[in-house]
């Protein structure tokens, strides 16, 4: 018992700076109930996505044509759609699809954009010119329209949706990372590292990359809601997920014909989109506030 206490005490001493950082962050988050709400929504979404097979009352693609368009009841909490599929189960499974799209898109975009951005910012000259002009071309189009065009060109499927969204989003990260790099590379410690004979690649990856990552990650959290929204939008237009995938945008799309008489068919998936985007945006705002030292001191 004594030993355990000692090890805990020494661990606390060793990590005192991390612990105080964590405490400060917790304090900040506590002060902003909206970001707590965002965090709760996101955690709930993640939980639902992971445990979908266990909590969904029905199979999301099992049809029951005798029971088409049943209104919400104790048997089908959110009713059934035009093929007699349980809407609640489809929304629950749809959570996983939405999160999967979001995670994969950001996993492609964030490293790609940041690497291109820091390369452009650090080396400058024609490398910068090429990368940033290509980025400008992508940014010249509204994101959703460009994603739709690319998605349509590639053919409608979930994978192509991800590719299309990823292609439209990397320039934001590249610009952000480039801007950060431009200011970081003029700082004295980078000069000192060069004077120590550190190679360019090493300066780039071990000094500049970690310093750019915080801003770009914050930006990514703010973009999470956007990705879900665009993916749902593309599915709604028939360019994304194809039936019978339980995808929210697709469910709204197929249900919109029933809006007047069977309102529950398109409404509940729509609510799911709203909730998810809302949750991620609140969380993103909260993370931005916590990670911005100016706001932190002032707040």
């Amino acid at each position: 018992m004594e030993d355990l206490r000692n090890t805990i005490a020494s661990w606390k001493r060793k990590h005192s700076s991390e612990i105080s950082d964590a405490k400060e962050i917790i304090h900040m988050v506590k002060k902003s109930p909206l970001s707590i709400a965002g965090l709760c929504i996101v955690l709930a979404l993640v939980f639902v996505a992971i445990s979908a097979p266990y909590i969904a009352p029905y199979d999301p693609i099992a049809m029951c044509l005798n029971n088409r368009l049943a209104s919400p009841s104790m048997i089908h909490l959110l009713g059934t759609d035009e093929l007699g599929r349980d809407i609640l189960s489809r929304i629950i499974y749809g959570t996983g699809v939405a999160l999967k799209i979001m995670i994969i898109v950001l996993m492609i975009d964030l490293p790609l954009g940041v690497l291109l951005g820091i390369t452009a910012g650090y080396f400058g000259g024609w490398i910068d010119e090429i990368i940033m002009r290509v980025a400008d071309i992508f940014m010249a189009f509204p994101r959703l329209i460009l994603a739709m065009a690319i998605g349509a060109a590639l053919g409608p499927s979930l994978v192509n949706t991800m590719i299309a969204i990823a292609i439209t989003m990397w320039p934001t990260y590249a610009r952000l990372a480039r801007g950060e790099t431009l200011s970081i590379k003029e700082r004295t410690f980078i000069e000192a590292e060069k004077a120590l004979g550190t190679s360019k690649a090493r300066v780039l990856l071990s000094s500049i990359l970690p310093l750019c990552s915080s801003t770009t990650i914050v930006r990514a959290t703010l973009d999470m809601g956007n990705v879900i929204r665009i993916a749902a939008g593309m599915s709604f237009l028939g360019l994304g997920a194809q039936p019978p995938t339980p995808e929210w945008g697709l469910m709204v799309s197929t249900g919109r014909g029933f809006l007047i008489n069977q309102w529950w068919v398109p409404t509940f998936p729509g609510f799911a989109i709203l909730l998810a985007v809302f949750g991620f945006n609140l969380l993103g705002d909260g993370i931005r506030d916590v990670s911005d030292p100016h706001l932190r001191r002032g707040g």
Partner: protein
Amino acid sequence: MPEVLLEIKNLIINFYTYRGIVKAINGVNLTIKKGEFFGLVGETGCGKSVTASAILNLVQNPGKIERGEILFKGKDILSMNEDEIRDRIRGKEITMIMQHPVAALNPVIKNGHQIAEALSKKMSEGEVKKRVIQLLKEVNIPEPEKIANQYPHQLSGGMAQRVMIAMMLSSKPSLLIADEPTTALDVSIQAQVLRLLKDLIEKHKASVLLITHDLSVVAETCDRVGVMYAGDMVEVGEVDQITNNPKHPYTIGLMRAIPSDYRKELVGIRGSVPDLVNPPPGCRFHPRCDYARDICKEKKPKTIQVESNHTVACFLYEGRKSG
């Protein structure tokens, strides 16, 4: 006579800006001998730091080294390729201490780790740890284990400069460039850091190029001094010669501008530093010089030896026999 470690010959550096070509370094000559503490003084913008970065071939855009040789141990650094400089010179044979010690340390890497990065890659992890602690002890840092585990922003300026010195001495360099190492520090800490630097240099038998605008620092620590003005090396000599018997009107002016017990009134140098896009013709100091003659406006003065180890670039001493 100790052997020459570094020799800069006729170095010319220009900066290509939108306003025009800034002639920052205008044919500078400089020699540093083995084991010597050489001070380079001059006011802001006279080219001290650019000369220092030229030694590591790190002159940043839009600066360009136009001409000249920088012979280090007899080999021209400017004609080496980038890999060779990186592998042999930077951080190995020649290291550099910066002006703002806290800014010169990477804010997101722990102190011990930063020093470790400067060490040889061949050592095992345990060896590296031991060596880091040992280096920190060498620069008189109390509780080296604790400091090694902290981040740079947790250090005071003096501490950070000592960490910097530890880092820069870790590769046992033969030349240490110290670019205003004490400017950002308190006077009391300044003296400590300079003493430490001096002791360590003697112990490691290295040479130092100390860049500063503080003549008292030079008088206290250096063996020889070079005085720069607007990209020219106007006077070079031993510390005693420069402080007690300055020859160049600019150096004389600098000396007169230092407060001391004997002088009730401080005398500044009239005028201000010339714009180096359009430097004055001839001697660059002539518009501010009390002794200027017609020839000063036309020709650049040659370097003349006025006593042993003491050279000056001024027409006042033209015609005197060297010796």
